[in-house]
């Protein structure tokens, strides 16, 4: 148990290697630099998380190891998203690294839901899907909804833009369509038309689909699922904890 964090680190690196299609121990050594320990690797083999080839040259994650790595990577990249999008930047790497080893599966799913099940981390790497993503893209807990789900005439604050195409993202940014601004939906057909910082902008559905917004952005209680009048005890536990983060940020 003592070297759990270090061993997790190995598992994570193996996941990166899988994403890149690499499988040699030499490569693992190179990317982990000084952090590589043969003993940890052997212990992982012993725990049934890693499979090492007989000659010791190639290495890969076992099924169980894959599941563990998936969980770690998911936590890491979601933490990055959380820091980058919601908490306003900072040193992504370090916080995310500490975060991934300590959080529970439930908390990770909670954060994922809160963020609206993002598909990529701020660096553009894919975030592995969790149960929550598969189950519910539109559960009542997802306070961030796709802009597609907003009704005509409603306003919403952009949470983030999940866009693969760099140029498209820059074009949107150039028009001030970016996280933090409030947009109003004017029309959905034949093209989507949104109003943003005084300009009307017509967009394809494909572009709109990439934009996620905070609904009820000016009502912090609504963010955590509490309707102001009926005081439901929903805001305790996870939602209340996370909600407490955001209240100050959304005070007008």
């Amino acid at each position, binding site marked *: 148990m003592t070297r759990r964090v270090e061993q997790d680190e190995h598992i994570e690196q193996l996941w990166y290697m899988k994403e890149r299609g690499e499988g040699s121990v030499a490569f693992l050594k190179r990317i982990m630099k000084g952090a590589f320990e043969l003993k940890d690797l052997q212990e992982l083999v012993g725990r049934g998380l890693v499979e090492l080839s007989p000659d010791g040259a190639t290495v890969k994650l076992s099924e169980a190891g894959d599941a563990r790595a998936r969980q770690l990577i998911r936590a890491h990249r979601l933490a990055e998203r959380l820091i*980058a999008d919601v908490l306003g*930047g900072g040193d*992504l*790497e370090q916080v995310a690294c500490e975060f991934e080893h300590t959080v529970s599966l439930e908390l990770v799913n909670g954060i994922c839901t809160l963020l609206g099940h993002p598909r990529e981390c*701020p*660096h553009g790497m894919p975030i592995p899907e969790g149960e929550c993503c598969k189950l519910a893209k539109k559960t009542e807990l997802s306070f961030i909804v796709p802009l597609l789900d907003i009704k005509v005439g409603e306003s919403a604050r952009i949470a983030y833009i999940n866009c693969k*195409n*760099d*140029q*498209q993202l*820059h*074009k*949107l*940014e*150039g*028009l*001030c369509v*970016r996280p*933090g601004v409030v947009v109003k939906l*004017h*029309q959905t*057909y*034949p*093209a989507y*038309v949104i109003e943003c*910082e*005084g*300009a*009307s*902008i*017509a*967009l*394809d559905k*494909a*572009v709109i689909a990439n934009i996620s917004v905070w609904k009820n952005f000016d009502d912090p209680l609504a963010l955590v699922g509490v309707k102001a009048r009926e005081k439901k005890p929903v805001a305790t536990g996870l939602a209340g904890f996370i909600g407490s983060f955001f209240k100050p940020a959304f005070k007008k």
Partner: protein
Amino acid sequence: MSPGQPVISAAAADIKPIKKAAIVGLPNTGKTQVFNNLTGEYNIVANYPGTTVEMKRTITRIRDQHYEVIDTPGLHCLYIHSEEEVAVRDMILAEAPDVIIQCVDASQYKQSLLLTAELLELETPLVLVLNAMDAGGRNGPAVSGPELERLLGVPVVESSSPRGLGKDELKAAILKARRSTLGIKYGFHVESRIGDITSALPFDLLFKHKIAVLLLLNDLFIGRFLEMKLGREKASAVLAQVAAILREVKPNTRQAINDRRNQWVDRVAEGVVIKQKASRPGFAHYVTQASRHPLLGIPIFLSLMAVVYLSVVYVSGALDKVINFLVVSPVTGLITALSLPPFWTDMLIGNHGLLTLGLFNAICTVLPILSVFFFVFGCFEDSGYITNFTVFSKRVFGKIGIPGNAITSLVLGFGCKTMATLSTRGLTDRKEKFIAVFLIAFAIPCSAQLGISMAILAKVGVSAFLIVFGVLILCEAAAGILLNTIIKGKAESAYIQVIPPMRFPSLKAVCQKTYHRIIDFLKEALPIFIFSAIGLFIFDKIGLLALTKQALAPLITGWMGLPKDIIDVFLLALARREAAAGLILKMVDAGALNYVQSIVAVVVTTISFPCVANVIAIGREMGWKAAVSMTVLIFVSSFVLVGALNWALVLIFAVR
């Protein structure tokens, strides 16, 4: 002053070297209007993004200093998305203008601030022009010019361009423009990375800081610029060095740059906004929304078309009569009275006469229609309806597989096909671009044609008008669907388009534009009208015309069901389509064409003969091979189509 720029002999002490002033800004922010005001020249302006597709230069004097003023197409930011924008950036980076004038739409000033931030990074003296200050007060947040000037550290001129207000202030501002130090600071971490890259760049390169930032952001086109500037070998050495530095850069650096920029923009925007009560959306707002509404848009579109139709038919009909009475009848009478030898009379006022087919055709038949049409069309352009119409028409165009970005170009084609073809430069996807260029050249009538076609068909009946435009739309749709299936690949570019709010068109701007369009038409087309008339006259006299008529008779009379004399029209159409249309108009008047024949004739002239300027534009955008093959394809397919149309109509109406 950049190295390599021609310096006019400094020995002549009273002649200062010419300085350069580049006008840049987001699309549809009034750059050309500022250019016109500054230089006293006239270039077409419209309330439509992408009106200017080429850079225009002219030399003007401000006090005792000569400036080369450069008008540019729209530019969103210096991090480039498209070919047309890269031209503007390359011009700035290569020519290093002495002053940059940025046009900003006051009602949407925040969008422009990102570009402002980047222009400040260039450390070139900058002047900001706040356009449409009067509209800004009504529709959006009002912005304080003096405050903006304080926050940016550069002169800000408030102007209302169409009225030419703020011209003198702008000139004064250009003279006192200076560098500002109030641009973005990226912070120690990013700046030191920028420093690393800067030191890898050649010592004498201009704008090293900005180029370093672009390299850091992985700009797609900056490598090409370096190649152009430094030569392939040196550039690739530099780029390799930069790539090594970039590998060491933390992945969140790009995000940090964007964050800094956004913070800067937010800070400035917040500082200059004049707080005001949220005004209730006005009448214009509702009209704008209705004009692009999927249902309400239909009656609006139809009623506007009706306005065009009625004004072209009645107003130009009246003008026609007046000119006929004042010019044509007296001149014809005079020539007849002179009783010249028959050859000369024939040459002047005969069927293929220099005056009949040349001068009178141009000024008496075509000109009234064009002036009315240009005026009405100008009103639409100025009101901002056309961009809203692109959103509305996306439904139809989308059905036939034309992506949103191409629609803007296609709609522009109703104004001028050449301009529209050049504007496809903004399309990044090759397939999308090919389809757009083809469809523009194919069955879209340009404004001149549209006007004259309306006038011709009005004489035959409203049903003819509807049939022709129905057929044209069908042809266009069929071509769109066909090309979409034939050409491989999937067009994937995204449609992102700012649409201007509608406003009441400025009468002065519209009149000015109509006047200049008419002058341009006369300058360009009148000589062609006259020369083609002479050509046709000679052709006729030496008997070649009759021979051609005989040779083509099976095609013309057999297949297309048109009278033999229509050859005259086709020959004129090769030179200038308005001339051909004018002749058709006359033939309809004379009863030489029946109902079906008129329809067929109008469709032929609309799609069979791409105008020369358009073909040249296609060549420039797509290469000459594509231009030639497109022209041939259009020519052949149109004759097949028109024949089929003829037979269909004959069957339906049982003429003959």
